[in-house]
């Protein structure tokens, strides 16, 4: 049974990662296409760096990811604390369900509805609209990432702080937030990865020359796949992989601490 499950896992991992590795492998190909590997080159990485329009888009993408996850972390943190403090069970579960609905509802619907919203309020499509949209879909994720660590911490600490005369503000800033640090960090990183690779929502709200990497890659691929796309995709993959490893170590620490306390 053990060997069976292990081989099953191996097959699944191969299926999931083979296409990405295949794509990364050919980004170093001198042949210029994905049919046969002729020799090693870094030309495509170089031409990505030299392409000013593409570099602008990459910088836009990073800017949007950082700004939106920054805001989303603040909003999500207070949302999570509020949810944690609610006493009435049905209010709490209703709010939590509403939060989860936003995570599972298709990006296309979120994107289209945001587009309608922005045009009603006369917000010009561009950097602002993209950042607002990214904050909107990141907040529920951050809430969901922070909530478990709130429940994991020792709730007596909060009561003790109250007993010892701490004001509500001090309870939140001195007790609650330091206790759930790993959760906040995990939420921030999750928001960052979601923002970096989002296509569907962003596709609706970009405009006026402002574009992010995933939207740009889609436009490029319509004109036929060049190995430049492979090169960018490889870079994104490595970045996202790194972030998820950091996230893994952070959450790993959190679980261990949860066991010892």
């Amino acid at each position, binding site marked *: 049974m053990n060997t069976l499950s292990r081989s099953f896992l191996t097959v699944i991992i191969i299926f999931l990662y083979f296409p990405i590795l295949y794509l990364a492998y050919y980004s170093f190909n001198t042949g210029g296409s994905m049919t046969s590997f002729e020799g090693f080159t870094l030309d495509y990485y170089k031409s990505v760096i030299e392409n000013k329009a593409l570099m*602008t888009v990459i910088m836009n993408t*990073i800017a*949007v*990811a950082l*700004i939106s996850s*920054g805001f989303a972390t603040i909003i999500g943190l207070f949302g999570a604390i509020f949810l944690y403090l609610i006493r009435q069970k049905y209010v709490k579960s209703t709010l939590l369900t509403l939060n989860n609905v936003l995570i599972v509802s298709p990006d296309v619907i979120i994107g289209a509805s945001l587009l309608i919203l922005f045009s009603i309020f006369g917000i010009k499509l561009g950097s602002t609209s993209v950042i607002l949209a990214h904050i909107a879909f990141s907040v529920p994720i951050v809430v969901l990432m922070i909530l478990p660590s709130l429940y994991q911490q020792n709730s007596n600490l909060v009561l003790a702080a109250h007993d010892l005369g701490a004001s509500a503000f001090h309870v939140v*800033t*001195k007790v609650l937030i330091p206790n759930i640090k790993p959760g906040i960090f995990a939420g921030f990183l999750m928001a960052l990865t979601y923002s970096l690779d989002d296509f569907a929502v962003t596709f609706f709200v970009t405009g006026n020359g402002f574009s992010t990497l995933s939207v740009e890659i889609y436009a490029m691929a319509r004109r036929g796949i060049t190995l430049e796309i492979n090169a960018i995709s490889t870079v994104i993959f490595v970045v996202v992989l790194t972030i998820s490893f950091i996230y893994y170590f952070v959450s790993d620490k959190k679980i261990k601490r949860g066991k010892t306390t």
Partner: protein
Amino acid sequence: MRFLITLIASSLLVGGLFLFGTKLLNNTSSSETDVLFVYNWGEYIDPELIKQFTEETGIRVVYETFDSNEAMLVKIKQKQRYDVVFPSEYTVEKMKKDNLLLPIDPDKIPNIKNIDERFLGLSFDPGNEYSLPYFWGTVGILYNPETTTGMDFSTWDSVWDESLLNDVLLLDGARETIGFVLNSEGHSLNSTNKEELDQAKQKLEKLSPNVRGIVGDEIASMMKENEAKVAVVWSGMAMDIMYENEDLIYTIPQEGTNLWFDTMAIPSSAKNIDGAHQFINFLLDKNVALQNTDWVGYATPNQAAFKELDEEVKNAKEFYPDKETMEKLEVYRDLGPEWTEYYNELLLEFKMSLD
């Protein structure tokens, strides 16, 4: 708590810096005076010519591409700066109505003399005040003579033949699809006669057993791989496909068909208007047009360049039809929102009736 403040503040700061950086990067490029913003269809100019233009005039060209007239229109309406655009003829008419084009000064474009007179002063822009033709073509039938053994495609009605069961591809465009059905009945493809249109719809429904699919760019790959025997396509698209699959033949049915143009025009958002005139004049130059026609492969309205083309290309009647056929061709008119909507509705109903 300090950790949280550091995290948020640094992410916002770094993000803001990046955003500011890209704004700075783009501003320096667009404030240069000797820049020309060209907005063209993808793969629709020989890139060498852009370099040549910069060498001759010192004007740096910022070249962007679009994939549909509608996408281009959106950008122009949002006042995005472009100095030269390449709209199709019905879009020229629409843009003219919406005041999105600037008049072209013929005195600044001496190479107008190279354009074949047949392609000047057409209904969509009489007097060529706002546009000059870039490339032109038709809508016709692309077929594989081997798999359709001995069939004659000289009329539109041949597409309805029973032997083509599930083997015909149509373009996903209301004007194109309804248009060729109207042509097959001998009506104008700009018809605004409800009876004619409803009759066309009934005739189209009879075609449904033969229809393999109503598709866009996928026609190219499907025809290349011989997945379907017959397709109703634009001549330009047909040329591209025939380049890769030499068995195929393109033909213009004798009832007549659509004559389309992609034109050069100066949008209202243009800033370098002198440069735009220079660029249009440059593209109309005999040698430039010749090189560009070789590279793009579409039919050129430039008579001077046409004369220099290879005999083989010049004599290809399906792409440069003779006078008799030319007389039967018709340019799309902008029918106004109401009738355009009706055409779209007819095609949509047809698409829904397909399985």
